[in-house]
């Protein structure tokens, strides 16, 4: 059954070095339609670097990257908009894709920031900007979404709602997602495949498999191993960004 899904991204034994120092090496994985692959690991372990390699941002890499789609949405970890640029949220939404006003409204509505549409990008808070970034990435109906710490700076309730949205998108739009996250709860409960990085792949597999790996315990400590038991209950409702409960 697994084999029927279209492979969107195939990364084979990739690595990149800067000034003769290896940032990350020997990483292989693939992202299929409707699947969420997550990269976890401590700071400086090469998660963002791996995502950038997969997206073809580096000019010189080791290994091979094959992308089988050109509809890609990217939420980078860091992006600073220069104050010299007068740009509204609506201008930013159409940065790499032509969208109708309706499409813009729908995407902004999904991440709960429709009211910010005509605001200047430089006036947004960190969390608001993050929601705009996610809205922009999903608005173009990508086949492959690469999300690098997509909910940083978002309040706790919003974080859960956004992760649920991401999960929903991958199910509904059948797009493949490469996710980088620090939130082990989310990673372990919502993703199909986990790669644990520390300059190289420490361990990888399904969340169940990874939490039992000794290298994972070494990297994240014993408490991180109990994460599955912590999260193994079913939520019977969801929250919209303003905190009200949407019954399923």
């Amino acid at each position, binding site marked *: 059954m697994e084999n029927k899904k279209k492979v969107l991204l195939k990364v084979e034994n990739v690595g990149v070095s800067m000034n003769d120092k290896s940032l990350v090496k020997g990483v292989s994985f693939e992202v299929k339609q409707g699947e969420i692959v997550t990269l976890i690991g401590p700071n400086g372990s090469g998660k963002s670097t791996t995502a*950038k390699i997969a*997206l*073809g*941002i580096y000019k010189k890499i080791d290994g091979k990257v094959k992308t089988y789609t*050109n509809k*890609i*949405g*990217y939420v*980078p970890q860091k*992006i600073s*908009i*220069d104050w*010299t*640029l*007068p*740009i*509204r949220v609506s*201008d*930013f939404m159409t*940065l*790499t*894709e032509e969208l109708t006003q309706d499409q813009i409204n729908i995407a902004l509505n999904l991440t709960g920031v429709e009211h910010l549409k005509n605001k*200047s990008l430089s006036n947004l808070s960190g969390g608001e900007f993050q929601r705009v970034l996610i809205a922009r990435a999903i608005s*173009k109906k990508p086949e492959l979404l*690469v999300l690098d710490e997509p909910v940083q700076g978002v309040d706790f309730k919003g974080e859960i709602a956004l992760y649920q949205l991401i999960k929903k998108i991958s199910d509904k739009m059948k797009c493949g997602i490469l996710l980088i996250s620090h939130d082990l709860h989310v990673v372990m409960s919502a993703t199909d495949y986990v790669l644990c990085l520390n300059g190289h792949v420490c361990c990888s597999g399904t969340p169940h498999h990874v939490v039992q790996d000794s290298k994972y315990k070494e990297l994240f400590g014993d408490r991180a191993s109990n994460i599955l038991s912590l999260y193994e209950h079913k939520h019977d409702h969801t929250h919209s960004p303003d905190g009200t409960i949407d019954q399923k």
Partner: protein
Amino acid sequence: MLDDFFIRALLAGIGIALITGPIGCFVIWRRLSFFAGTLAHSALLGVTMALVFELNIALSVFLISAVIAILLLQLQTKTNLPNDALLGLLAHSSLAIGLVIIGFLTTIRFDVMALLFGDILAVSQNDLLLIWGGGLFILIILKIIWKPLFASTINYDLAKAEGMNPDRYNAIFTILMAAIIAISIKIVGLLLITGMLIIPAALARNISNNPVQMALLSTIGGLLSILIGLFSSLEFNTASGPSIIAAALFLFILSLLKIKQSIKLKN
């Protein structure tokens, strides 16, 4: 009608303002003001090369600008010097070499002042053809590459990841800048062309809230600078190039005042 030197000057200035308006916005957004200045300085070398080898001046300036841009890229990868130091090095050494070579050209009488500050009142019909033909070409290219260029300006990684090929568009933009300097050097001069690129865009920034609006207002600001500058130079018998830049500065100061409400354009 076009025989009248003042009409030709007006037409030339209007042509220049139409190009520098939108391109100047990108110069500001991409923080290329100093780079534009460096290309303009190197134009002197371009002009002397044209005289030595009997080339077309605009073509020679364009080629030298391109060489300077390539040299800059090389130096950036091969040295640890900061960008502004490299730009200063290229700007002043190319200016110096140009001036030294002019010294050797004893057979050609050469007006360095006109080169530095422009001589818009001596515009010929051929110059007009170059400005309007070249300018139209530059604007069409800019229109075609606007979206990927803008995306690359906002964020390299994002543009690259989503298939916009920022390296290509950054290179095309550099070529456009060199082309602008090549066609406008005779009109505003190499010391003032950077002013024409930056000041109208800067005043537009003060009164705009989106990129397209800024490009439009920048163009309008440039046109007004040309008109005010040229008519006042006629009236008070001042040098035309500096008068245009002074007019632009005057408009910039106006834009600092609270005129935001009165010029609120809707997209």
